């Protein structure tokens, strides 16, 4: 019965669309717009002329994110250690650390030279609320906007990247793309899109009170990105 009501409503809405479009609809199949699509890249200002990594770093820092660059696996561990050491001196003391199931990630986190109370891979959603830091990788990044691209069908990081007050992400330098358009094409290259893809540009923010910027409302308050210029993490 509910189904038939739904069917009726659907028929009525589509009928109303067709009736109101009437004769004014342009006939036949929709025209291809590809020919009018301009390439909408950012202006060639000085910050855009550097390497993709430099541009990414500059853009990320412009939105209150932090960017560290590592040449080797050891440097990634050093970077993680530096971040944790810094956090220890703040109110964001990293006692409980959640790690995603990305290949090779847990091993690196276990090498951090800072005393952590707990390191757990993929804690449950309800547990996650009491974690202090979430560490994940990112599947891609967009240089021109300083954006991380998280494809949660390839890594269990939908919540680890979101719930704890600190998010640390490692991105392989080879997966940084110059433009938004390029990245969108990549996400859609086999005609399908993963069930959940999240773009992350800086920490969570709001300006809802007197238009004053406040960082860290519902998502992370701190976002650290480690760019891995060495061998891709999954291959280590």
């Amino acid at each position: 019965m509910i189904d038939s009501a739904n069917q009726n409503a659907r028929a009525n809405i589509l009928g109303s669309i067709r009736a109101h479009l009437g004769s004014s609809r342009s006939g036949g199949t929709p025209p291809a717009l590809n020919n009018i699509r301009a390439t909408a890249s950012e202006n060639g200002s000085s910050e855009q002329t550097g390497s993709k990594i430099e541009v990414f770093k500059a853009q990320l820092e412009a939105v209150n994110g932090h960017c560290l660059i590592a040449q080797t696996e050891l440097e990634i561990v050093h970077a993680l250690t530096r971040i944790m050491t810094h956090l220890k001196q703040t109110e964001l003391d990293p006692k409980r650390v959640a790690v995603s199931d990305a290949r090779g990630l847990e091993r690196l986190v276990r090498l951090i030279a800072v005393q952590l109370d707990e390191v757990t891979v993929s804690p449950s959603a309800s547990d996650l609320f009491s974690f202090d830091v979430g560490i994940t990788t990112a599947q891609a990044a967009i240089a021109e906007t300083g954006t991380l691209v998280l494809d949660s069908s390839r890594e269990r990081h939908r919540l680890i990247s979101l719930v704890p007050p600190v998010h640390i992400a490692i991105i392989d330098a080879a997966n940084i793309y110059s433009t938004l358009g390029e990245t969108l094409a990549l996400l859609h290259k086999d005609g399908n899109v993963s069930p959940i893809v999240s773009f992350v540009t800086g920490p969570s923010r709001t300006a809802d009170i007197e238009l004053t910027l406040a960082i860290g409302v519902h998502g992370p308050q701190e976002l650290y990105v480690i760019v891995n210029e060495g061998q891709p993490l999954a291959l280590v």
Partner: protein
Amino acid sequence: MNHLTAETFDENAKAALTDTHLRGALRNATSLFGERRRAAAASLNNWEDLRTQARAIKDETLSHLDEYLMQFVGNAESRGVQFHWAENAAAANEIICGITAKSGAITVVKSKSMTTEETHLNDALENTGVKVVETDLGEYIIQLAHETPSHIIAPAIHKTKAQIAELFTSELGSEPTEDIAELTRTARETLRDRFAAADVGISGVNFGIAETGTILIVENEGNIRLTTSLPRIHIAVMGIEKVIPRFADVDVFLKLLPRSGTGQRLTAYQSFITGVKSHPDDEGPDEVHVVVLDNGRSRMLAHPVTRQSLACIRCGACLNACPVYQQIGGHAYGSVYPGPIGAVITPQLMGLEKAAKLPYASSLCGACREVCPVKIDIPQLLLHLRGEITQGATETVSQPARRQAEKLAFRIWAKVMTNPKLYELTTRLSRSLQWIVVRDGKIRDKPTTQMFSALAAWTSGRDLRPLETTSFRERWKTELSRGEEQ
């Protein structure tokens, strides 16, 4: 005090104009948003091309809306999304209340959605005994205060931090503080428990991508990601016009929307949701429902002028640019959608008779058209709607005599203005007779006399100076002859 209606727009606006605090807040907000928008648009070298493209994409979609909508629905359905069709607000609320009731939900978390504001979903859900929690900070503040949004993207723009601090202290029992970071933290902590407890998350939709069946939602706070990731059930509510054809079209709209709305290159988060999760163990909700709402939208397709209204991507740029909105704010419009876009959408959604004053809440300066990222010609729409309103008014019996008089007056005026002799005669005559309607040095009729009711109506909001004792022509003649004498 904030639940104003569009019917009382004139009174609402007058009251808003006396609220010095509100006007200060509006001045700050609209000028800041305006500056940021200009700077962000300038960071692209082809802003105008992008606007043209975005509009072309929207026009293409709207002229084939049934096809693109069905393509979107088909692709999302094949990925496990359940679709529900709602012809009006009541039907949408009934559907959503049905899903929540069936799930046994006690708490519902919501992320900002203008569409659910339009249907007054919260009231409907609360009536079924469900607790609804708005999670966008601005929406949460106004929910606690039992108010309505006053701006599309900054709903609590009208409230000061002192008012918010007071509200948090009385409603949440938090320590009194006017520190904005502290207030934000209080909201975060309180809402975390709600997120953890919620069975259903309700969101809006920014774009429905036909080619892939993807829902795209744009935000800064992270509450949309939580709303769509944590609860067992996600319900997304979308107007029929939210469809865009191709995945690649996202490029254009993601460049325009954040820049026009908040002046950002990109907002902090974009969620691309394509169907339900592929494995039961994956993160995310078990069920994804999409409610497709018409509620008067399909009617707007009928005319090319009104059809443009459906191209709106709800960025709020026209509000910030509008000299009327800048003075009176969002509440005065008495509608979910305020500002220039509200003045054209509201009468079309609610009916002209309920919002007949809104299309006149504009000086037709065109600032809204200048900033619109999808090039909606709002002044053209306003004039179109004014035309429909006057047309409608002549058909009703209320003031046929006055309409006739007005028509006659304009016919006479045209005659006089095209005949120099007649013009001179008329001005002479007017000059000697204008004392009848001149009060305090201005032409106006006292409400007590109402000798010329049409004139009284016209001058009630305008200052009209009386004619000078000598005309320009006369002065020209006398001054010229005086010059020759010397």
